[in-house]
């Protein structure tokens, strides 16, 4: 634990030095990478540790984005709006988890997948509050320059990623992490041995929601504009999963490594093959699934957490 924590502090300190480069392009990439990191770390709680294939990330992300945006529209200060987004996502995950986590395998995957669709349609229809399909503009924070704003949102996302990562470190060593690993390996046996599986799973699901919700709110403030198809994009769910698969759930750093690697690939593909970038992304996913069995096996058999 100590070694992991030290390595993490060093890593985050290194990332924190990025604004020194002063390059806006790198700032944007860095912020996006940290956001992806939050998505991946969060998915890991429910998908990596408990082994439940959740596709709810997009729902949490969109919910957080809209909670933050609507709160700011109603006059709540930005930082408080972000906190509200986290609370909403947490409460939503708790309610949703109690209903959906009784399902296993495909059924859980599908049910969590359609949640984002339902929320998107609801947001689309609630035009008075959310602006519907026209989207929602957010107030631009009063900061000296565009550059200062970029740096501000970078550090906000960095703080969130660090918090999510620290939570991972704590959870892995805790009773909760142990219980989740038991659930992943054999849920019925864990249940029989006295692990309160429902409570553990719901806790993991809440952890997988709260940080993503805040990330959504920060994203909304960062872009100053959101619309339903953007923030409820199912690709957020899929990317979270692919990043963890890519990094491998074998270590606590897996999701972070996966996020950095995935973003690099995505950016390269996007820059060079604009017309076919989703197709190339699809090809990468297929190749990953077919030829990277180690990262995948670790997910299945739970080699989670080194000594």
């Amino acid at each position, binding site marked *: 634990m100590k070694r992991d924590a030290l390595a993490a502090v060093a890593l985050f300190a290194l990332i924190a030095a990025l604004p020194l480069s002063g390059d806006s392009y790198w700032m944007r990439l860095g912020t996006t990478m940290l956001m992806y990191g939050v998505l991946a770390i969060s998915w890991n709680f429910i998908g990596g540790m408990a082994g439940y294939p959740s596709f709810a990330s997009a729902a949490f992300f969109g919910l957080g984005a809209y909670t933050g945006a609507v709160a700011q529209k109603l006059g709540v200060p930005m930082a408080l709006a972000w906190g509200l987004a986290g609370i909403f996502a947490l409460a939503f995950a708790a309610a949703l988890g109690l209903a*959906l986590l009784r399902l296993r395998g495909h059924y859980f995957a*599908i049910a969590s997948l359609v949640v984002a*669709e339902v929320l998107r349609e609801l947001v689309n229809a609630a035009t008075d509050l959310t602006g519907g399909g026209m989207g929602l503009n957010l107030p631009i924070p009063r900061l000296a320059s565009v550059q200062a704003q970029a740096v501000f949102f970078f550090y906000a996302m960095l703080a969130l990623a660090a918090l999510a990562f620290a939570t991972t470190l704590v959870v892995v060593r805790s009773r909760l992490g142990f219980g989740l690993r038991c659930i992943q390996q054999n849920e019925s046996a864990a249940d029989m041995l006295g692990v309160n599986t429902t409570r553990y799973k719901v806790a993991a699901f809440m952890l997988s929601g709260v940080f993503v919700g805040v990330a959504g709110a920060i994203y909304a403030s960062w872009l100053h504009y959101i619309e339903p198809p953007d923030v409820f994009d199912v690709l957020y769910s899929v990317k979270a999963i692919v990043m963890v698969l890519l990094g491998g759930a074998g270590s606590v750093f897996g999701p972070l490594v996966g996020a950095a690697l995935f973003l690099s690939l995505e950016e390269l593909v996007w820059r060079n093959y604009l017309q*076919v970038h*989703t197709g190339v992304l699809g090809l990468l*996913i297929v190749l990953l699934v077919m030829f990277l069995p180690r990262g995948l096996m670790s997910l299945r058999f739970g080699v989670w957490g080194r000594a």
Partner: protein
Amino acid sequence: MLSLQILANGLILGGLYACIAAGFSLVWGVLNVINILHGSFIVLGGYLAFFAYSIAGIHPFLAILIAAPLFFALGYVLQAGLINRMIAAPVLLTLTLTFGLDLMLSNAMLVAFSADFRKLILEPPLGVLSLGALVLPVDRLSAMALALALTGLLYLVLARSRIGRAIVAVRMDREAAALMGVNVRRIYAVTFGLGALMAGASGALLAMIFPISPLVGPVYLGKAFVICVLGGLGSVPGAMIGGLTLGVVESFGALWFGPEHAVTLSFTLLIVVLVIRPSGLLGRKGYE
């Protein structure tokens, strides 16, 4: 009288939905693979019918005969060459695999056909059938009849033919079927081929009624999910009942709550059914 018309509309829509979902449900039930490609297969079938009509003047009903062998071959090759390698992997991986394939296919269609919506317009139009106060467009009615006939045919294949019995056997117990001399991998490939065939054929039928674009694949995929859950997995009668139910629910939902809530309504229905009866309204393991 209005509600009778809405009911008729819903049943017509539901017949098409049944055809959309039957293949998806079969693949899910037999292979335990969620085929995310299904929506794109439907769209591809739609384009096939569209171009067959606009270039060669082939009527969409006949285009089904062209679509069927092509899509069966496509599905068979995909399964035998690619998905069979991953078939023993956990749920999440096969799902991710078909998702990746779907990204590729839909991107290819986007490049080839552009994102414009196109509509196959029959010349001359088939007109409408008036039964008292009921007005039924003949193109929709005949498409629904064909869709139900296709679904019925799939049911007969599964219930009567040798290969169909083998598919059902694999679904019930893979190991036992293998011990009885069934080539499980070949059955997987045939099943996936049949699923693709149903998707392509229903796409050809839908092209007459709804505008097609590479972007609508996920819409049909979502409907297939809902119908599967409503009717229970891997069961053709279940898909039929689920499809008709969804069609009627959507039609009345549009009347009562407004059309913009149709998707919300069907997905809410899905979640409620999942939570109350995870095996589907008709769900049971076993025979067709």
